[in-house]
């Protein structure tokens, strides 16, 4: 048996990835091409071995060559489906990751895990979920791309064009009115709500909030609501959002959120007596001072307060840009 030449090895490597039915034919064609090309170089005065090396180098990667011969795509997802793949993957990650993180943290807190453990675990879980989502989405799309022969499975129609969104002229008035309604409703809930919470075991009424805290907290919150009311009326008079108003709304949100979060985390917001009479056996421990559920709720309250002024910020920036544009 003679040692295989470089050409033999090239033929073997290239033919490997061609479907079996076409392999012999492909091999012969390629052998002809390589042989003729080498002969041409030798005729022009080159050394046979150098010519062989030259020709094979020019041919390039045998797998790529075989793909070009067989008209096979050299990408996982072609242009027909790439955009759809990207949009779907982003959407999935944006929806699934926060949900998973929230559920995992809550579950770990309830089962009494330490902060370090929760932090590490969340990172691992998020990485796992991301990898799975990306892999399976890509796998499905690669399959669709192969099966459809690179033609888009979804036809684009002009109806899909996004609607041009122009904020209504009276947007600010709408915002003010809806917020005033919200303020009044919140005030009602603070005044009457706690009295409406039924006793957990039906044996005589027990206040839901710790009476000592609630005695001052409810008036404090009502005062913040009045400040909110003034804020919205001032905004209506001013006519449009500005960064000063954004700052004020941040202060007001913090003013409402911080005492709630602090009393929650300190275990002085919810009445322990009320908790003791529920079916939830370790409720006092979970919702008491430094209780894990209490901590999560406190953090959530602060988070909501931090997110609250974003709408105003966006509007203030738009107003600012319009002003500059004018």
């Amino acid at each position, binding site marked *: 048996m003679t040692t295989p030449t470089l050409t033999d090895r090239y033929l073997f490597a290239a033919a490997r990835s061609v479907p079996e039915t076409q392999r012999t034919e492909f091999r*012969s*064609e390629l*052998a*002809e*091409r390589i*042989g*003729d*090309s080498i002969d*041409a170089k030798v005729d022009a005065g080159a050394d046979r071995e150098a010519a062989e090396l030259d020709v094979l180098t*020019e*041919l*390039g990667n045998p797998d790529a060559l075989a793909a*070009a*011969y067989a*008209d096979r795509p050299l990408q996982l997802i072609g242009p027909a489906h790439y955009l759809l793949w990207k949009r779907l993957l982003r959407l999935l990650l944006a929806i699934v990751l926060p949900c998973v993180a929230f559920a995992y943290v809550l579950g770990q807190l309830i089962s009494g895990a330490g902060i370090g453990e929760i932090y590490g675990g969340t990172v691992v879980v998020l990485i796992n979920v991301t990898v799975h989502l990306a892999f399976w989405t890509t796998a499905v799309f690669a399959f669709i791309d192969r099966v459809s022969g690179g033609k888009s499975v979804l036809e684009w129609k002009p109806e899909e064009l996004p609607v041009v969104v122009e904020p209504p002229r009276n947007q600010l008035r709408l915002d003010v009115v809806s917020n005033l309604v919200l303020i009044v409703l919140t005030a009602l809930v603070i005044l009457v709500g706690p009295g409406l919470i039924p006793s957990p075991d039906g044996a005589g009424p027990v206040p839901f909030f710790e009476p000592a805290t609630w005695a001052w907290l409810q008036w404090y919150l009502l005062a913040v609501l009045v400040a909110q009311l003034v804020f919205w009326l001032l905004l209506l008079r001013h006519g449009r959002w500005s960064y000063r108003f954004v700052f004020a709304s941040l202060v007001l949100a913090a003013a409402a959120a911080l005492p709630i979060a602090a009393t929650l985390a300190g275990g002085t917001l919810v009445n322990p007596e009320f908790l003791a009479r529920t079916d939830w056996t370790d409720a006092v421990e979970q919702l008491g001072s430094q209780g894990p559920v209490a901590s999560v709720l406190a953090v959530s309250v602060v988070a909501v307060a931090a997110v609250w002024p974003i709408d105003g910020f966006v509007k203030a920036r738009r107003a600012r840009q319009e002003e500059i544009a004018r």
Partner: protein
Amino acid sequence: MGEDEIEAGHRQELRRGTVGLACLLRLRTPDYGYALLESLGADGIDVDANTLYPLLRRLEKQGLVTSEWSTGEARPRKFYRTSHEGDRLARVLTDDWHRLDAALRGLIERGES
């Protein structure tokens, strides 16, 4: 991207469609890959081997050329010949080519006057 690269890209784009037609016309007399490459080059149609060989394969798959292995020579060679269908397509493409040529001539002359 340099100016030369842009120019090369456009020239390649312009030539791309003509290679298929040149093959169909040239292969009315049967020939094998390397000889075709040489003779097209001699006729002033510059084509890269990496374009020509896969193109021949595609034309054969589409039934525009037929092939036959000739074993009489130093190595087995695949001889291609334009089929009926290929001949018909070559005539359609030739008409298109003339139309394009006339149109471009018009544009060029108008630009010069």
